[in-house]
Structures are given as C-alpha cells and as structure tokens.
C-alpha cells in the first residue's frame, strides 16, 4: 500500500474524464475512436499505478489484457466501419 502511487493514479483520472469532450464533439468518426484509444492507454497507466498503490500485483495482468485488446477496436473500426465509402485506392495492398 502506497499513498503516493494512489495520488498519481488520481491525477491521471481527470485526463480520462476530460477526453470525453472529444467523443461528444469530435467532427469525424476517427476522433471519437482515438479517444477510446486514449482511454486504453490512460487505463493501463492507472492500473499499473494502482497495482502498487493497492498492493495487488494481479492488476498487472489486467493491464496486460488492456494493452492486448486496445488495438483491436481501433483496427476493426478502420478496416470495417470507416473504410469502404471511398474506393479510390483499391489497388493498395492491406
């Protein structure tokens, strides 16, 4: 248990909360998806700090799962949802 790390996690939490404005306002769909990515990265940092702050090393595994699955939503978004309306560069591999 360490109060210092808990304070650091507490400082990072408003960084997530203010990111919500970009979801609500974002002009394009990618801006909204980027905010979800910010939530993922900040969530990993908060979990790492909380694992020392709460004295629970299991939280490192949750951070690992966060890091593994953070890219999945963004890549699905780009490949499935956002792509497709513009067929101009169809010869591009990938």
């Amino acid at each position, binding site marked *: 248990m360490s109060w210092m790390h808990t304070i650091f996690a507490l400082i990072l939490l408003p960084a997530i909360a203010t990111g919500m404005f970009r979801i609500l306002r974002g002009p394009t769909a990618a*801006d909204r998806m980027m905010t979800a990515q910010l939530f993922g990265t900040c969530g990993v940092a908060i979990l790492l700090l909380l694992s020392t702050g709460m004295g629970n090393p299991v939280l490192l595994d949750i951070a690992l799962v966060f*890091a593994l699955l953070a890219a999945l939503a963004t890549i699905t978004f780009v490949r499935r949802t956002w792509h497709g309306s513009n067929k101009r560069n169809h010869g591009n591999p990938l």
Partner: protein
Amino acid sequence: MAATKETMEILYNCGTLFIILGLPFFLSGTVGLIRFPDIYTRLHALTKADNVGLGCIVCGLALQSGSWAVTAKLLLIWLLVLVASSASCHLIARSAMQKNIEPWTRS
C-alpha cells in the same frame, strides 16, 4: 545479490522521479487531444505523448519493483501498448489521407 538498504532507497527515489516525469506527458496528451485543430495533429499528440508518459511510468515502477519478473512484465506491457498504438495511429492516418481529409494549415 543482496542490495543494501541505501541502494534500495536511491532506486525508489529515482523511480518516483521517473513517475512524476511521466505524468505531464499524459496530461499534455489529453490537452492536445482537446485543443488541437485537426485529426493529424490530434493523432500526433495522442500517440507520442501518451507512449512517452507510459514509458516513464513503466521505467519508474520497474525501478521501484525490485524483482526481475515484475520488470519483465512491465516492459512487456509497454511494448504491447507501443505496437498497438503505433499500428492504429498509422491505420487512422492513412485512412484519413485516403478519405481526402485536408491537413490543417495556419491561414
């Protein structure tokens, strides 16, 4: 190798310093996401600043952890976040270029 108590204390304080160094990167990444004018600049703020901040925090926690297993796991987490965010940043930027979204210029 048994580290002496003084060495442990120095390592702990260095770790705290690294974590404190990493926090402003995170906050500036969020400020950049809110304030920057177009999608490319926002991608730049989000991806780079956040990953450097996470790197500093991982470095500090690894210095404080005092065990090789935890250090290896922390480095693995950082590496995964780096790969994930750089891949998705590249995909979003290329897709935006293909959709003819104009980069912001000071005009």
